[in-house]
């Protein structure tokens, strides 16, 4: 059984004047112990998707329809207590900016205990404290006692991110959501953090959804990748296949345009800007920027087709003669 399954999820944001049609029918799946990547430009809706899974969308955000199945139970229909329990004990999230994810006026100890208190109800204070110390040790921070007594500003960026990971681990019983866990970190520190996350996920038998716009990070860390563009999942494939032979034009362009260390070949960039969510383009949302766009792309939204045993893509170029699949390829 899938650990987490998102089916046909639509999310809107509302401001006073406008409605932003952000998530436009997302379907994705995470198996136990699987590491899944989510790539796409900023503003593609990646963070919104993670927040919808945890149901921590801001008040303007609204889930229009769809299902978020956690171990087979739809979180959107489940009662509040169950959802709360999933947040506390099932899913942990690493937030993007380690500086703003930690409250600057409290000691690390207090912030960590606050999280632990919810995830481990019924534990005594001293038990919680030793749990906290153990967590800090597990993220390879030297001198846990001292770290616990410090304030966030006394730690370096890399150390803060380790603390944030420790906090996420406290509530990650089964699934870790990592939202750009290494943005703003130096490449050397990024490498250390990624190795740490990888080790912890494997050791604890967790699943992970890793969101990043740094493609290399996703390539290195995951088993399977989803490409997201403007609130749609446009391609899904096992990681090596996606990066070495991408199918969807957007994925292709994305990969071509990363400045690589292996060659002096630069892509042409992707023309235009991401779409305005107030008035998303009809048909395929990528068509205004797509070099291969034809008439049908402007009118009909492409459905997902299964192009091989473990790949699916939402693009008219591949849809001919293939059958529409709604759910996940591997599930069929």
């Amino acid at each position, binding site marked *: 059984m899938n650990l987490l399954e998102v089916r046909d999820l639509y999310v809107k944001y509302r401001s006073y004047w406008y409605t932003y049609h952000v998530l436009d029918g997302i379907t994705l799946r995470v198996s136990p112990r699987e590491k899944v990547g989510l790539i796409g430009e900023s503003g593609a809706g990646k963070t919104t998707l993670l927040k919808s899974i945890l149901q921590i969308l801001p008040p303007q955000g609204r889930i229009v329809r769809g299902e978020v199945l956690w171990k087979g139970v739809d979180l959107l229909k489940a009662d509040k207590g169950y959802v709360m329990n999933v947040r506390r004990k099932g899913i942990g999230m690493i937030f993007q900016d380690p500086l703003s994810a930690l409250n600057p006026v409290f000691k690390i100890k207090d912030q960590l205990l606050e999280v632990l208190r919810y995830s481990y109800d019924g534990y005594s204070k001293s038990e919680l404290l030793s749990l906290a110390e153990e967590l800090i040790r597990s993220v390879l921070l030297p001198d846990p006692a001292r770290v616990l007594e410090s304030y966030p500003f006394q730690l370096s960026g890399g150390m803060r991110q380790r603390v944030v990971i420790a906090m996420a681990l406290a509530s990650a019983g089964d699934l870790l959501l990592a939202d750009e866990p290494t943005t703003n970190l130096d490449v050397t520190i990024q490498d250390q953090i990624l190795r740490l996350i990888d080790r912890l996920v494997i050791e604890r038998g967790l699943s992970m959804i890793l969101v990043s716009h740094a493609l290399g990070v996703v390539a290195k860390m995951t088993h399977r990748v989803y490409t997201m563009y403007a609130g749609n999942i446009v391609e899904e494939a096992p990681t090596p296949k996606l*990066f070495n032979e991408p199918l969807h034009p957007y994925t292709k362009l994305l990969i071509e345009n990363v*400045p*690589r*260390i*292996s060659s002096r070949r630069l892509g042409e*960039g992707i023309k235009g*800007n991401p779409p305005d969510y107030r008035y998303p383009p009809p048909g395929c949302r990528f068509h205004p920027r797509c070099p291969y766009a034809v008439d049908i792309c402007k009118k009909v939204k492409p459905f997902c087709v299964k192009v091989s045993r473990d790949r699916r893509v939402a693009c008219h170029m591949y849809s001919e003669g293939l059958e529409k699949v709604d759910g996940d390829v591997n599930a069929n």
Partner: protein
Amino acid sequence: MVEDLKKYFRTPRGIVKAVDGITFSMDLGETLALVGESGSGKTTTAHVIMGFYTPTEGLVTYKGIDIGIPVEKRPLWLKREIQIVFQDPATSLNPKNTVKDILDAALRVHASGTKLERLNKMLELMNYLGLPEEHLFKRPTELGGGEKQLVALARALAVDPDFIILDEPTSALDVSAQSKVLKTLSRIQRDRRVSYLLITHDLGVVRNISNRVIVMYLGKICEESETDELFSKPLHPYTQMLLSSVPAMTKEDEKVLPVRIESRGEIPSAINPPPGCRFHTRCPFAMEICRREEPPACNAGASSHVVRCWLYSSRTRV
């Protein structure tokens, strides 16, 4: 152009030796990349060249003239010749001004001329950088990240500089915009023969647009080489660590990565830098001598390849 430059900052916790004796020079029309982790002193170096800080010690010369003076006191011709493009165009462009205001401000300072002439120049620039005309009346907040950075570039180009400092020009941009900006940078260099000093920690960017690379660590230069040589034969353990930390995306990328040196530790504070070789605290090959004495500059491989590391001290010293 930069000789034994030192820049120290006085702070309540001690003297921060941000840049501690670095020497390098640049040729006309080349791109020199300064790479290293944050805290290695690369941005400080750039800001001293710009005159945002004055050097504590050492000399910064440009075309033979000492330019170790604050930017406010520099003659106008000098300000015209050296320009800078900052990391985040969202903050380097005034959010309240339109693109036209921003470009006009630059033009008014240097190229006197009628309103019409300035407008023509603006349109020419926008055209050259592939920005549509109607952006002229937009504010930066209405533009995409890549477009904003192109506007920042247009502002720098408006005064016809010979030398542009690029301070992390693409790290705030999305992938789709990065390569456009980088391509534009290369095109400008071809057309106008400007020199670039590229400050970045993205080795992919370095590989793609620079001719020469200087690797800095904690205020010192560890390695200096032609770009291709550095990527095919990195010598300094720190360079190797940097390179092996880059996550490989495809099979080709993996081939380029050198012997893997696992990244460990963090860059120490520049207030009390470690004695000897500053990298010894994180270096897997650290020897006794590394802790005591600073490594000499050695020539290894190609003549332009200089490395400061005891591992190569048996080779020709420079």
